[in-house]
């Protein structure tokens, strides 16, 4: 198995600049990333689902993700599902704090005491969910939990682990004359190279199997993928050799 990033929970905040609750989402996410669960969480800027690459769009498939929204437009949750994968959990700050009898005042630019309290409440809720999600088995192939465990539903009511521009390494390869992007392929090649696997048929089979864990490979195209992967791995090995 390649040395892919250890299991972490992704946090996507709406960061809405127009509302105090949007600022709360950003600061709460940062509090979790920097203070409460720094080793267990990563984040991504929401716009990268559109402006970034395939690796960015794979974010919510690789990491069970908590979407943190300020208002009921739920930009983070809906955009994450639309462009990446369904968040494992989501919350809306305005609903969460209303449940706790708190009303936000102040501006989006500078939170007042109520805003700071909202940050604390929201961050603590996120941290609780991080702990829950870390104990569940996550499939990076399907972007869902493997076991039929209860997924946290939306309540009714430094660098901060930022991965922008380099979420999951990916590589384009030519398959049947078409260009496809394979998530995690650079890491897979690296792992095979480090264990001195030669670019041969046996290794090609192994690489294909690992690639299938992280990517959708149509059954009828497996042979073509295998050929392409072996070719790319040969190139990778040659580059490694030349660099020595």
């Amino acid at each position, binding site marked *: 198995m390649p040395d892919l990033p250890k299991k972490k929970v992704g946090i996507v*905040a*709406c*960061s*809405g*600049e*127009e*509302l105090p609750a*949007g600022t709360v989402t*950003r*600061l709460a*996410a*940062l509090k979790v*990333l*920097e203070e409460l669960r720094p080793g267990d969480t990563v*984040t991504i*800027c*929401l*716009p*990268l*689902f*559109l*402006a*970034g690459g395939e690796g960015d769009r794979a974010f919510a498939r690789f990491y069970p993700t908590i979407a943190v929204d300020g208002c009921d*437009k739920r*930009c*983070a949750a*809906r*955009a994450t599902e*639309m*462009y990446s994968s369904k968040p494992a959990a989501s919350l809306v700050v305005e609903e969460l704090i209303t449940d706790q009898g708190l009303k936000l005042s102040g501006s*989006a*630019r500078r939170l007042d005491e109520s805003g700071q309290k909202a940050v604390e409440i929201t961050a603590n809720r996120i941290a609780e969910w991080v702990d829950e999600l870390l104990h569940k088995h996550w499939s990076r192939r399907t972007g869902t939990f493997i076991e039929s465990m209860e997924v946290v539903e939306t309540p009714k009511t*430094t*660098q*901060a*682990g*930022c*991965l*922008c*521009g380099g979420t999951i390494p990916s590589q384009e390869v030519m398959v049947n004359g078409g260009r496809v992007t394979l998530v995690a392929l650079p890491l897979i090649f690296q792992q095979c190279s480090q264990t001195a696997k030669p670019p041969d048929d046996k290794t090609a089979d192994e690489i294909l199997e690992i690639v299938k864990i992280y990517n959708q490979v149509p059954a009828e195209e497996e042979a073509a993928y295998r050929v392409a992967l072996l070719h790319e791995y040969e190139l990778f090995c040659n580059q490694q050799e030349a660099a020595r």
Partner: protein
Amino acid sequence: MTDPKGKVVIVPCSGIGKSYGTVTREAAYEVTEDLLPEETRLIALSLLVLGDEEARAAVAESPAVTIDGCKLACATKMVKESGGIVAQDFTVLDCYRRHKEFKPQGIVELNEGGQRLAHALAEEIAATINNFNHAPVSDTNQGGHHA
């Protein structure tokens, strides 16, 4: 200029993990709240990502000024994707190259260098928008130039 439709739209990048993202946001707030509150309005990038109709209409109807924190230029890309016209795109890095003495640090709270960089950027943006208001309309919609 109080009609929202006539206001220049300011779109910061929404970056969450780096100081430069915070600088974009601070500069946007300074322009829209302090320097040119009557001439500008802020649009959250998350709304454009989702395809919110009101936000898309805002960037389609008014010239937009984007402020990006990194080379991925999310704000500029999203305004264009949303059918808007980028009248001017600013990047924090370009501004920092002109003000090397203001090194930004911190994300939740910018250090003094970051705050001064945001202020310098806000003033550049305000000056540019003031020029829009004195230039022929066709000159404000060329887009795509770094400040």
